[in-house]
């Protein structure tokens, strides 16, 4: 069956994503992290979503919220190969289509075996790291701190 070009960049992105360098921190979490499907069963919790899901969704939205449709302008620039955002007024850090298409590509490649909400989180973080908006080392350090902070409560 021929590939459908209904969403123009996605098929190219998927092909490209197969060559994306994995992020070691995220690979580690992917291998060792306990997903909600397992946690919920182990603790007998019936909530279909992990407690951080709504905060994750909030983050995806707020990163895409620029000054109105300026988000579209950034998406356009990205498709044209322009990744310099410093000149854009009101440009959102991570526009919707950009993030969703990368999530699609990562879901078919690096994170294909990860359940959905965890996959959405890994893809978001991957997109942020890829753009230099957060650093892997900073994340690793902060995660360690978070674990210590929450264990102490």
């Amino acid at each position: 069956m021929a590939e459908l070009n209904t969403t123009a960049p996605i098929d190219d992105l998927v092909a490209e994503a197969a060559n994306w360098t994995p992020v070691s921190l995220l690979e580690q979490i992917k291998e060792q992290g306990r997903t909600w499907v397992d946690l919920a069963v182990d603790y007998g919790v019936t909530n279909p979503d992990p407690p951080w899901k709504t905060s994750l969704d909030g983050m995806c939205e707020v990163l895409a919220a620029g000054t109105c449709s300026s988000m579209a302008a950034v998406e356009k620039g990205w498709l044209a190969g322009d990744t310099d955002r410093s000149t854009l007024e009101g440009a959102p850090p991570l526009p919707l289509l950009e993030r969703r298409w990368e999530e699609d590509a990562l879901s078919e490649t690096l994170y294909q075996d990860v359940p959905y909400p965890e996959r959405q989180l890994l893809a978001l973080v991957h997109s942020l790291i890829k753009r230099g908006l957060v650093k892997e080392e900073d994340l690793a350090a902060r995660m360690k701190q978070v674990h210590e902070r929450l264990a102490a409560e």
Partner: protein
Amino acid sequence: MSHDHHHGHNPPAPMVDEVSDFEALEIAVRELCIEKGLFTADDHRKFTEFAEHIGPTPAARMVAKAWLDPEYRKLCLTDSLTACKAVGVDLLNPTGFGTPSDYTDVRVLEDTPTLHHVVVCTLCSCYPRPILGFQPEWYRTPNYRRRLVRWPRQVLAEFGLVLPSEVEIRVEDSNQKCRFIVMPVRPAGTEGWTEDQLTEIVTRDCLIGVALPKPGMTSNIKLPVHKAAKPAH
């Protein structure tokens, strides 16, 4: 092991007692983003509240009300913001303007005995979340998005929905700011039903258009989208 007797109290609801790496990652990335000025804690809170306000399919009640009240049906088709308020959803709340995913132009697609609608967003999986809840995982997959526009009857058959050739299947590709729900035809066997009873059979799958409402059918399809990498047991 001794038993604590909580006189007159129910045992506490089970809770997950460990912090997963994913939970820690979410907190860590959020804190770092706020520290770098990518967004403020306040703005994040607003959008999170938006997500938390999303309850179970108010749109089901919109359809049930529309089936019972021709005036409300008309309202659904002409002033959806007001129609949504009638089922407790203020699309302008709490952000005041929807979100970059949601916007505030909701359209109701009315089925007839010879016209059946089904909704998809080929570009990214846009969905009327405030009235329909969150997208099912299958709705987000490129598999559904790529195939529904071109082979709707095959994809619907995979959901167990086969329609005669005389029925026009109309695919709505939701690619801009409008958001869509399907208003199915009220099924036979529901004469004299209350609004609550009708609401129960208007499932999320019916509101997307991959299922038809039936007396006795109150749940959505469970599609295996993903094999678990680490099975629970």
